[in-house]
């Protein structure tokens, strides 16, 4: 789209390739089909929710309630299904609808009251997570055999979950790059006042992005439930902040208007490749945190370079 964005995206992908090269030198099994499949599978949960997060951040917003939505949807899916195949479609639709309405509430409160998104979504996060714990405070319910396909099934040699991720990603990219809605997202993130003076329905567009974000969080929740066989009230916890990392590492500005899903995709892979290779090298999980922290700061400093340094 923009030359500058391209150049920066190239750099992120260059780093990703470098990481893959180093990992494959350090470990024989890294490039095995099995491990690649593993990496893809690991990417999917974080990937899905990061797609939604990218939309919100592009409008200069943020959604901290995704973790709670993931926990909620994972428990609700299994709790309502209790292993019954016949209920699969209605339950999934209901869960997605609930997620969409949570996103709507986030967006509605943010646009109507002017309370910063950080605070609103922190509030809804607590509210929803509390509700989940009231519903169940331990793993609960049972996934239906049909829905197990989501986590474990394959189409040819491609895991169904990876397929779901690729479809969501492609739809996301098309929305951002080729639709009026996507253009409006960039316009609002770039300059909300100009967007308003250009007749863009700023509030409505923002609400849609929060709905999209909750929707992708629900997909992650259902996928996690499918993987574990039952719902986990703490399943979403790590995602609240983790979902921001690929977006930032991928070059989307927290100030909005800049970046996109191609960058987020690189961010997702950088994180999973890092975890995967450090795991294989038997490095403690705590070190993974340390390295991840360094990557975040270095990446954002790279995008801002020169801007605040003069």
């Amino acid at each position: 789209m923009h030359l500058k964005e391209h150049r920066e995206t190239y750099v992120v992908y260059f780093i990703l390739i470098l990481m893959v090269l180093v990992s494959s030198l350090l470990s024989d099994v890294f490039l095995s089909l099995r491990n690649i499949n593993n990496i893809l599978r690991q990417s999917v949960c974080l990937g899905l929710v990061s797609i939604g997060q990218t939309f919100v951040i592009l409008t200069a917003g943020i959604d901290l309630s995704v973790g709670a939505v993931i926990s909620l949807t994972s428990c609700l899916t299994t709790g309502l299904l209790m292993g019954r195949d016949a209920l699969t479609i209605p339950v999934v639709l209901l869960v997605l609808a609930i997620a969409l309405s949570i996103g709507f509430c986030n967006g509605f409160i943010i646009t109507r009251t002017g309370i910063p998104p950080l605070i609103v979504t922190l509030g809804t996060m607590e509210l929803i997570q509390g509700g989940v714990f009231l519903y169940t405070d331990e793993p609960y319910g049972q996934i239906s055999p049909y829905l197990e396909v989501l986590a474990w099934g394959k189409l040819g040699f491609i895991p169904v979950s990876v397929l779901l991720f690729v479809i969501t990603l492609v739809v996301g990219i098309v929305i951002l790059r080729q639709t009026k809605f996507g253009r409006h997202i960039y316009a609002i993130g770039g300059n909300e006042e100009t967007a308003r003076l250009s007749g863009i329905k700023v509030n409505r567009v923002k609400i849609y992005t929060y709905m999209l974000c909750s929707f992708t969080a629900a997909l992650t929740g259902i996928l996690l439930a499918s993987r574990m066989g039952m719902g986990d009230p703490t399943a979403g916890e790590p995602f609240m902040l983790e979902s921001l990392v690929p977006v930032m590492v991928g070059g989307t500005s927290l100030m909005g208007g800049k970046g996109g899903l191609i960058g987020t995709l690189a961010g997702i892979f950088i994180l999973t490749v890092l975890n995967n290779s450090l795991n294989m090298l038997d490095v403690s999980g705590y070190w993974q945190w340390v390295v991840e922290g360094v990557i975040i700061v270095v990446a954002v400093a790279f995008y801002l370079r020169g801007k605040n340094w003069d």
Partner: protein
Amino acid sequence: MPEKIFEMQKISKSFPGVQALDTVDFDGKYGEVHALIGENGAGKSTLMKILAGAYRQNHGKIIVKQEETHFSSPREAQKLGISTIYQEFNLLEELTVAENIFLGREPTKNRFFLDKSYLFGQSEKLLSQLGTQIDPHRKIKYLSVAEQQMVEIAKALSQNANIIIMDEPSAVISGKELDSLYRIIQGLKNSGKAIIYISHRLEEIFEIADRATVLKDGKLVGTVFPSNVDKATLVKMMVGRSLSETFPEKVAGEKSEILTLKNITQGKSLKNVSLRVYTGEILGISGLVGSGRTELARIIFGADQFDAGEIYFGTEKVHKNSIRKSISRGIGFVPEDRKKEGLIECLSVGQNITLLILDQIKKWFFIQKDREENIANGSVEQLNIATPDIDQEIQFLSGGNQQKVILARCINANPKVIIMDEPTRGIDVGAKAEVYSLIRKLAGQGTAIIMISSELPEIIGMSDRVAVMHEGKMMGVLSSAEATEEKIMMMATGYGQEN
């Protein structure tokens, strides 16, 4: 004759593309109010920022208290006793009056603890010297604008300022508050301070100034004693200039009434404004900053609501106006602040151009890239926008080219009425001429143009009719033949009769 406290000799300053000041002399004396007057953009603020150490001159000398000085920061100027009270106050809303007065110079006990009794005691003393009863314990956010101004003056006094620059202090206050400001200025003057009073309101010059220096286009016109001259002389000094710019020939298009405003009132900013706008002509709106020009423009565009009055678009009465409705009726808006309200900096030139017409270039849900490129390239060519290509991010273009992009965005939506607020602000001479001929061409094609401008030559050179505003009131509409700089300036400062 009092002694000079400072002297600025042959000061020149240029910014990229503009000669802001050209060998200007200026001085101040102990116990004197020296007014600095001129139109917007005459160079008053630049000159004072140089004196206050915020800018550095390219040429010229500054002598303060008999010593030549070179300020490299406002702080150094402050140390020499030069304080500026800007129109936008430098106060922290959440802190108390006393804390603001001593901000950055907090008195301490044992080098670490705040000396609160000195802080509040000294503040109270300073404020009572000014004859005000503001409680130094109150937070700034609970004070009126006039009271905040007093705090600023107290702050200047606390720094032992003996040269106090006031940048249009009357722009934010009025009536009784103004009277008490005059009294305070009188008191400061009697205590031997030199006051520089920037303004473009003539009546106050006669009220308080001992001397008045007039700037025009960055040049010194002259220094006079208000007691020896009349208003007309001052106006002539402010505006009388050679028309160096060339404006396109005034050829109006087909004329029919398209927009009618009846008694529009909005809070304190607009009072009973009535106006008729015709297709095919350029209606200039003139007035000083704060006269309600921008507020009027925003109301017509639907960006703000009005309290009373009626707007007719053609014969249709406008109910509950909104930006979207205005755009669909065919009203275009080129805002005053290009950066804050006009551009979307992260988007490309092409994306900025097509922002208003995405509906026309999309098929199903998808924006047709080829149509978008065609339209954007067409605009770039038609308006002669200097850019490597349409994918360039707009922030890398020059001001003039950015403005052309915003005009292109507006024109592509095919509006019947275009409101332009300061369409040539901050753009270079070449781009100005191009914008002028574009505006005239649009009018020739039957578009109604409402052009707000602070630059009188621009208003006179471009407009078929000139509406002049003063303090929210419509002072009158002049025909092209009637509109002279003197006449407009008289009306804009409140001397014409209103209708």
